[in-house]
């Protein structure tokens, strides 16, 4: 009973002290506020990014391999070393398609940015993709209306195209696009289908594109100096490692690479992006922890400093309380509570600030920042640790004061 009574008294005293010295209290907590805000904001951003990234990356699919000239992630001089590699060709894609036993679908693709027109409507910088009928399977894209490219369209290089939902909306705001002729780089293509909306990935609108047969692409835009990208959808995510080995074998055989020489092509997959992303965010984590720790340390020292000032200022009060019957532990508890409350003030303000920043970030940028409940518990942990750690010295100094000297203190 007694302990609750004087702890409550301690809370009231601390509250009174914080209220009497508003500016001082806020300045004291600034370090804590900055530290907590930094840590929580970065944690929220990383969590938001993680979620966004894995959502987006999963649209690539864990069961798709990409045979390309360059790997997705290159370090140092890799680009310089790889730039003289042979282009990947349609013939190689054909060979892969014929020999790969673990592949469900194989689609070579070529791409370029061009202007697309229909009557007076024009869209600049539309991604024109030349491919085969298999692309329907490898890319997980399905026609919303009309149909996708058929084997026939591709074999005969027909001047037909399948357009993304964004292109359809902009070129044909009020009419049915099927059967209409659009103009791509001076050539006419008949629209045979519109693909489902895909949304955006890393800020790249995936619906602003048009698909045409790969042969038509080559005759329209030329085939030299363009490296084909071969998209391979494997039978299941479980066989992706085996499929990669198989594809490597096929490519090496096609290119007559003698044993012992390294590949002159790259086989990319989603997990590569994931790994790179993880190593990036782990750096971010380390920075967050570093910055946070330093500001919390500085903030803690600030609290200790102000508590020491407070103990000196209130020496007489401590003397009075002791003369009246306060024990050393009562005084200790009183100042620890004050320390904890300054900390709590800082952490609460820091958390609120971080929530504000997170909300602003997710409202104004495509990065979704999310603050979860455990962040709040993390904050509580900060309060207790910093408050006790930096409060214990001033508090015990106060507790050990001699009542006679303290009463005499002017």
């Amino acid at each position, binding site marked *: *009973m*007694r302990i609750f009574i*004087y702890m409550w008294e301690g809370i009231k005293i601390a509250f009174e002290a914080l209220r009497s010295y508003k500016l001082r209290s806020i300045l004291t907590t600034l370090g804590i506020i900055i530290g907590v805000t930094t840590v929580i904001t970065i944690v929220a951003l990383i969590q938001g990014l993680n979620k966004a990234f894995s959502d987006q990356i999963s649209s690539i699919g864990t069961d798709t391999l990409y045979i390309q000239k360059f790997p997705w992630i290159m370090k140092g001089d890799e680009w310089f070393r790889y730039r003289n590699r042979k282009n990947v060709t349609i013939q190689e894609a054909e060979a892969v398609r014929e020999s790969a036993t673990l592949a469900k679908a194989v689609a070579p693709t070529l791409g370029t940015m061009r202007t697309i027109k229909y009557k007076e409507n024009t869209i600049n910088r539309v991604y024109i993709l030349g491919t085969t009928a298999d692309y329907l399977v490898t890319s997980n894209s399905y026609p919303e209306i009309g149909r996708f490219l058929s084997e026939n369209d591709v074999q005969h290089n027909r001047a037909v195209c399948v357009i993304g939902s964004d292109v359809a909306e902009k070129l044909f705001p009020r009419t049915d696009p099927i059967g209409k002729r659009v103009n791509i780089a001076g050539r006419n293509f008949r629209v045979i289908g519109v693909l489902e909306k895909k949304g955006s990935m890393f800020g790249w609108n995936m619906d602003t594109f048009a698909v045409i047969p790969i042969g038509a692409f080559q005759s329209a835009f030329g085939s030299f100096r363009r490296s084909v990208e071969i998209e391979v959808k494997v039978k299941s995510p479980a066989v992706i490692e085996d499929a990669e080995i198989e594809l490597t074998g096929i490519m090496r055989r096609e290119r007559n690479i003698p044993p012992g020489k390294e590949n002159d092509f790259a086989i990319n997959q989603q997990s590569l992006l994931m790994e790179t992303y993880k190593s990036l965010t782990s750096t971010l984590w380390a920075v967050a922890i570093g910055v946070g720790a330093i500001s919390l340390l500085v903030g803690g020292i600030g609290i200790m400093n102000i508590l020491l000032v407070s103990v000196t200022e209130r020496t007489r*009060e401590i003397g*009075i309380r002791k003369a009246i*019957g306060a024990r050393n532990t009562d005084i200790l508890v009183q100042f620890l509570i004050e320390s904890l409350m300054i900390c709590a003030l800082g952490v609460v303000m820091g958390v609120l600030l971080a929530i504000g920043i997170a909300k602003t970030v997710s409202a104004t940028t495509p990065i979704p920042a999310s603050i979860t409940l455990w962040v709040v518990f993390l904050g509580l942990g900060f309060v207790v640790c910093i408050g006790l750690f930096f409060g214990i010295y001033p508090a015990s100094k106060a507790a050990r004061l001699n009542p*006679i000297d303290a009463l005499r203190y002017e």
Partner: protein
Amino acid sequence: MMLIQLQDVMKIYEIGAVQVTALDGVSLGIKKNEYVAIMGPSGSGKSTLMNILGCLDTTTKGSYVLNGSNVSEMDDNQLAEIRNREIGFVFQTFNLLPRANAIHNVELPLIYNGTPASQRKRLAKEALEKVGLGDRMNHKPNELSGGQRQRVAIARALVNNPSIILADEPTGNLDSKTGEEIMEIFEKLHDSGNTIILVTHEEYIAEHSDRIVRLRDGLVERDEALD
């Protein structure tokens, strides 16, 4: 039986290498409901004696028995407890908490002995009424006159119903008229059964008491009863 029994009490301070003997073997007995004034010039040891009587300090040698307990053998926590239970202090400079109102100042001793809030309020109110401040309970010290502040301090000394009230120059910071009013309060408290020890260097203040103990050079010079 004596309420206070000092036996050959010595207090020696060590200031650097120098030893200062503040009390050089003081023996003193005070009965319940006595009204004693302790007098002496500065340096006579009266402050030291008051600190020891108030259990703020311990003796170097000799024993101090207060209300049956041997104070000279107690540690810090026990001393705090006995101060809380047995002693009510009234200081020259009032020593109220500046940011707390009158009633909260009076409640303070009760907080440290764990009295529940409702009972605390009631006891504090009673004590303030006893010193004539029933209408000033929510005022802060800076909203009160010197005399009123000293009354709050007396109410605080009373609230726990202690064995002794220890007043150190209680009128030192007051004009003589207010000083007289405060002395009247002490007289009333004495009449209602309290034991009062008054430390002063003013003869006319000491004359309010029933007995004057004069100190000089750390020794009791004279101990006389007044009529």
